[in-house]
């Protein structure tokens, strides 16, 4: 049977569409020209300028602190939630629990942002880094819970019961049986929570208040006020970071898969 060439051609076009804008942006970050309207020679000047922008580094530090704490808290909450959903799947409480975990994923970000803002204003919580942290944990829990739940559904719970039958206490069971089996799911969940927190703009923008700045908020105001070459350089650094993370995580999951086979 002769297959149509159309799907492959469309895929190639889609990939060019995905990557060309990003490649042009990276190239322009090394362009000496201020407006990026033509190539005026290779230069690191925008990266050098970036180093001197104290506000960007402050924002980067805030982003990192928030992302790390959010990752830890949402990993703990998401994992307990996944364990409950998996272990007590048939109870009425878990059906409500699952709905509550699932719904934030389908709610547009702006709605979550505005409802959290109103809740904080109504409760008199001052807006700042702490409210950003609370908001990020709220949307990260769902992602972590579903990723870990996916991993839990793959393994045989009888192993845990066997460990308990053989006299292991709950701490021993958790540490020696559950944790090693869950590790790839936990790593994937943590990575996802970290990335979502670092990248989030809309919800953060609503609950940040006037004082607190994260990297996406800083980037947004730079876009609005037209610091184009600096954003190119900053974006390139962030993209490099993303590619490295994706590469490392692929490596990690690959070795995990192999271990599983042995």
């Amino acid at each position: 049977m002769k297959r149509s060439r159309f799907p492959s051609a469309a895929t190639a076009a889609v990939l060019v569409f995905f990557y060309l804008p990003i490649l042009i942006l990276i190239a322009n970050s090394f362009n000496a020209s201020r407006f990026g309207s033509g190539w005026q020679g290779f230069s690191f000047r925008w990266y050098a300028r970036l180093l001197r922008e104290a506000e960007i580094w402050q924002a980067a530090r805030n982003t990192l602190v928030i992302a790390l704490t959010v990752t830890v808290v949402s990993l703990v909450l998401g994992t307990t939630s996944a364990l409950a959903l998996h272990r007590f799947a048939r109870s009425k409480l878990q059906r409500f629990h699952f709905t509550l975990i699932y719904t934030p994923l389908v709610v547009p970000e702006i709605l979550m942002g505005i409802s959290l803002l109103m809740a904080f204003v109504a409760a008199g919580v001052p807006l700042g880094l702490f409210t950003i942290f609370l908001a990020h944990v709220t949307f990260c829990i769902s992602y972590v819970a579903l990723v870990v739940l996916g991993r839990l559904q793959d393994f045989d719970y009888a192993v845990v019961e066997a460990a308990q039958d053989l006299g292991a206490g709950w701490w021993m069971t958790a540490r020696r049986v559950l944790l090693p089996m869950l590790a790839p799911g936990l790593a994937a969940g943590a990575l996802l929570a970290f990335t979502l927190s670092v990248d989030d703009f809309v919800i953060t923008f609503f609950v940040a208040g006037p004082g607190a700045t994260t990297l996406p908020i800083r980037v947004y105001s730079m876009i609005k006020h037209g610091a184009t070459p600096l954003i190119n350089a900053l974006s390139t650094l962030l993209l490099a970071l993303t590619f490295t993370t994706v590469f490392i995580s692929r490596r990690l999951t690959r070795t995990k898969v192999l271990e599983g086979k042995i």
Partner: protein
Amino acid sequence: MRRKYQEALLTVPTLVWLVLFFLGPTLLVFFLAFRPPDPYGGVGPGWTLSTVRALIHPYYLTIAWRTLWISVVTTAICIFLALPTGYAIARSAPKRRNLLLMMVIIPFWTSFLIRVFAWRSLLHPEGPVKKALVALGLVGEQTPLLYNTGSVILVMVYTFLPFSILPIYAAAEKFDFRLLEAARDLGARPFPAFRRVFLPGIRQGVVTATLVVLIPSLGSYVVPDLVGGPSSEMLGNKIAQRVFVDRNLPHASALSIVLILAVLAPLVAVLLLQRKKAKPEIILEEGA
């Protein structure tokens, strides 16, 4: 008894967190729409219907309609592009398939703002796309590529396309391609075979892809804000304006309710349709 205790221990932390920071705040939005605003950007005492009544105005109707059609067009384009892409990835050899999948997933991990910004500089009057199109004689020197509805749809497709490819690929991967070959052997031409055999086979994937693009599209705020103009403002922009510019939270709440209803409509529609379809399929399975 111990089981109940265990369940509570594992469930209560997330349940409390999500009730406090998700369910509660969402319900609060419905209440605040009926409270009067105070001049300091807060909420005044008493109850009023005036905010909700103010929404029944041709101006908001235009914006709601525009939000709807921009989202529908974006979704249609995404599905149109995702179908051949998902199909091609599912049919390629395993090694190549992994590479293609990774290339579709990477944009998902890269910053949303950066991807919007990349297009903003591409479409800029001094940018490369504009220059190329003018050199080819396709557009005039004065034709703006940025700050209109066209640029909003283009960038929305760009940011949402990976989300629509993945569910379609996931469905296509489970599809038995021998069915397609059988249809071709029986004389079906490629496109009718695709439409009558492949498309119904991956229906669930198409439904998921539609929802994951349509719902965030309806709530779009950043894309129309950064690459759109006054003529392409969407509900999300109005909500943000009421919050940050007018500092009128009740009005923002009322607009949010409109958005919530707009998002719920397709979800409920899909749920009802699937309930209807699900029954005969179960009978079929049991019969077989």
